[in-house]
């Protein structure tokens, strides 16, 4: 290969102009590094939020009773007692697009186990609930349909509750008292962590919905029913079917408004996506600015050295270099700098991203497309501004290049 001999020349030239080479590379390193770092972190937290939304459940639909309005004054959602256990049972039995249904009767209560006590959220749910919410048991069993029928006083503890009340001891089979009603612990949930909003999802006790309704609540108010559609595609259909069923069951006339609200996980997801999208956009903008700053840095260094380089090119041409010899050398030089700078930028960017990710507890998602774009951009700037003056100089007569000021 004829151009091979210019690799050595280019390397020597880089070594001889150490400061210039370093500053050029620094521009590329800053540009590439910051883009990779910011975007990887942005995408990482986007993935985190998405994962948390996903962990809410599978194809989750949340039905809440509507707002009561008395003489024109509206209460909040759930203030109207429009939903019932029967609604939940009907949805479970009749709707093809729905995979599971569970009423959720929530009560805040003080719980006592031996000498320990803890205030937590008690949720009365049906056996389908773990499937709907993607819950898994780390120990024991979940209650079954029979427990609902006989209003068994059994409880499944969230990880936090189990830790607080039993601090490492095995809670299975022991008795706890919720509002002075004794319950037998039959299971412990696997930890789920915090929600995106910072709520501890493990600070909960699950008991049969009927038990909750009749032992801890007023025996009739069901504010929330959760359901899960058969598939992501069935979400729309499930919503429509639930709405139709509830309207019939609630005997609503055509002109009457729904006395309930259905929210889907898709809605929540799209909201989260919007938020994280804004975040990523912001980070991308910052990254873009750093890329630009890096690019301007490269450009400056290259342009400042034009005089020196033009004279060097004049000398080389005077002793017999052809235009294409000059171009080959300078192109190789620019490419070596870009590759080195790009490589270092990638290493540095990823290093900082993973370091910050560890400190902040966010994931890091590496996007090869972004890396490629950043490297190509910086390399492009480096090659253009390294190569363009060389091209101009190589087109001059040797004497003009030598006299260049």
């Amino acid at each position: 290969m004829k151009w091979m001999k210019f690799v050595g020349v280019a390397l020597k030239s880089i070594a001889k102009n150490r400061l210039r080479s370093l500053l050029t590379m620094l521009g590329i390193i800053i540009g590439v590094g910051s883009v990779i770092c910011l975007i990887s972190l942005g995408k990482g937290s986007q993935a985190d939020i998405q994962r948390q939304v996903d962990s809410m459940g599978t194809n989750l639909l949340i039905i809440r009773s509507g707002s009561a309005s008395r003489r024109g004054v509206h209460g909040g959602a759930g203030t109207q007692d429009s939903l019932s256990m029967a609604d939940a049972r009907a949805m479970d039995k009749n709707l093809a697009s729905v995979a599971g249904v569970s009423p959720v009767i929530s009560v805040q209560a003080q719980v006592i186990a031996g000498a320990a006590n803890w205030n937590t959220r008690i949720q009365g749910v049906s056996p389908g609930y773990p499937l709907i919410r993607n819950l898994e048991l780390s120990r024991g069993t979940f209650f079954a349909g029979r427990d609902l029928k006989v209003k068994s006083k059994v409880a499944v503890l969230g990880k936090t509750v189990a830790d607080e009340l039993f601090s490492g001891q095995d809670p299975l089979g022991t008795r706890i008292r919720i509002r002075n009603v004794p319950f037998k612990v039959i299971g412990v949930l696997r930890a789920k962590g915090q929600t995106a909003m910072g709520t501890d999802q493990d600070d909960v006790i699950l008991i049969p919905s009927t038990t909750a309704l009749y032992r801890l609540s007023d025996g009739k108010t069901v504010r929330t029913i959760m359901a899960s559609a058969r598939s992501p595609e069935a979400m729309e259909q499930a919503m429509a079917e639930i709405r139709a069923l509830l309207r019939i069951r609630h005997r609503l006339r055509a002109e009457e408004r729904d006395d309930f609200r259905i929210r889907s996980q898709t809605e929540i997801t799209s909201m989260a996506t919007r938020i994280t999208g804004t975040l990523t956009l912001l980070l991308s903008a910052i990254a873009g600015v750093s890329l630009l700053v890096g690019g301007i840095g490269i450009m400056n260094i290259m342009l400042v050295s034009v005089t020196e380089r033009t004279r060097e090119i004049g000398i080389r041409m005077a002793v017999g270099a052809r235009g294409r010899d000059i171009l080959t050398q300078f192109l190789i030089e620019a490419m070596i700098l870009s590759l080195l700078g790009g490589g270092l930028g990638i290493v540095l960017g990823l290093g900082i991203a993973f370091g910050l990710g560890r400190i902040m507890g966010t994931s890091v998602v590496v996007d090869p497309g972004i890396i490629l774009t950043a490297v190509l951009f910086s390399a492009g700037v480096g090659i253009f501004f390294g190569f363009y003056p060389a091209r101009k100089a190589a087109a001059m007569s040797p004497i003009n290049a030598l006299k260049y000021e």
Partner: protein
Amino acid sequence: MKIIELKDVSKTFVLGDSPVKALDRVTMTICQGEFVAVMGTSGSGKSTLMNVLGCLDRADTGEYLLEGINVSRMDRDQLAHVRNRRIGFVFQGFNLLPRTSALENVELPLLYSPLGLGRESRQRAVEALTTVGLAQRLDHEPSQLSGGQQQRVAIARALVNQPAIILADEPTGNLDSATTLEVITLFQRLNQRGITIVLVTHESEMARFANRIIELADGRIIKDRGVGDAFGEESSP
């Protein structure tokens, strides 16, 4: 044997709207083995002439035959080849690559010849530097050399491809009188080896070493005489 032939060579520079005739229909012949000194007042066109002879610049009109080959019709790559193989050029300002050792500077023309860089090119660069008396300064960079030494490196670089001609534009212009003498005797030695030498100088002291003096004024040759003719006689029209 004719080595350089110029026929009606002209070159005009246009600065603003006032054209300067740096070379005005110059016709001359230089034979192999000659040692020619080019003289003339400042601005008389000496550098312009040397640049054209050295294929560093092109004439506007006229013909330039180098070793019988018409150089005026060559393209850029062919001119680069001529500069590389046929001509060694020595500048007033040395024009060495900075931060580059004497050896590498002398090797530079070989990089652009089929030989390339390697053991042989190094060998030849060492020989050339030995010829100019700098065998002890191979690894010195220009900034570590005196002006005279730098100019000798530049002469070694001009020598390294064994050209038939060495052109030098005021090679001693930046040197003191002692080093000037060193450099000029070096040229004389090279001339005795059969290399044709054309050099520009302001000093008639130096011109004495030449065997022919060409004097320019306003881009024309006004005097052309052999040193043997003694000062004052004219031999061209």
